């Protein structure tokens, strides 16, 4: 596709439910980033991949959060036993790194509401 695609666009979950958020990056982009954005705040880094390798997961808030990118393309962010504090927009971005660094192209995000 032309851009980064995320699904679902909106997700309502009951507290304790597991959720899976999907990201389809721009074809050929090596790097993929996940961010969490609370209302009125900046994107907070969660994790990032180069191809299938998860190079940094230091931003994942707890062991309930898990991300994978098994074939170096599509990525899934899974949240187990969701809590109300997990409510936020989850943004995925892909990047084609050049000699100057990464330039991120974001998807529209998944807005997660935990009731």
């Amino acid at each position: 596709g032309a851009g980064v695609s995320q699904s679902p666009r909106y997700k309502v979950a009951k507290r304790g439910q597991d959720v899976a958020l999907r990201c389809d990056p721009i074809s050929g982009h090596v790097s993929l980033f996940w961010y969490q954005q609370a209302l009125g705040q900046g994107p907070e880094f969660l994790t990032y991949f180069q191809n299938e390798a998860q190079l940094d997961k230091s931003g994942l808030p707890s062991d309930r959060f898990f991300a994978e990118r098994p074939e170096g393309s599509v990525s899934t962010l899974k949240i187990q036993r969701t809590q109300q504090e997990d409510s936020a927009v989850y943004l995925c971005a892909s990047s084609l790194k050049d000699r100057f660094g990464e330039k991120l192209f974001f998807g529209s995000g998944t807005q997660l509401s935990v009731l």
Partner: protein
Amino acid sequence: GQQVMQIPQYQHVQEGEDFTTYCNSSTTLSNIQWYKQRPGGHPVFLIQLVKSGEVKKQKRLTFQFGEAKKNSSLHITATQTTDVGTYFCAGPLRDDKIIFGKGTRLHILP
């Protein structure tokens, strides 16, 4: 920890006035990026600065990267209603993870 900080958090300007947002990093950055997020939208890449002291212009927007590569600014001349949104700076910290500032939200008063 390593941080990217932005000021001000909010800015209200009359249409036609100028606007500036400032970004500071706790560490030297190899490059700095700026993104714009419209209300209800997602961040969109604006520009990347790489060199010490670099200045780049995009129409009414002027971006600067400090000599020490630890600070940056975005200046908008003669703001228009289309400039409304939140402006974020972002920089790669260790291991290339890209960290965002909290952003400056720009409101334009007609």
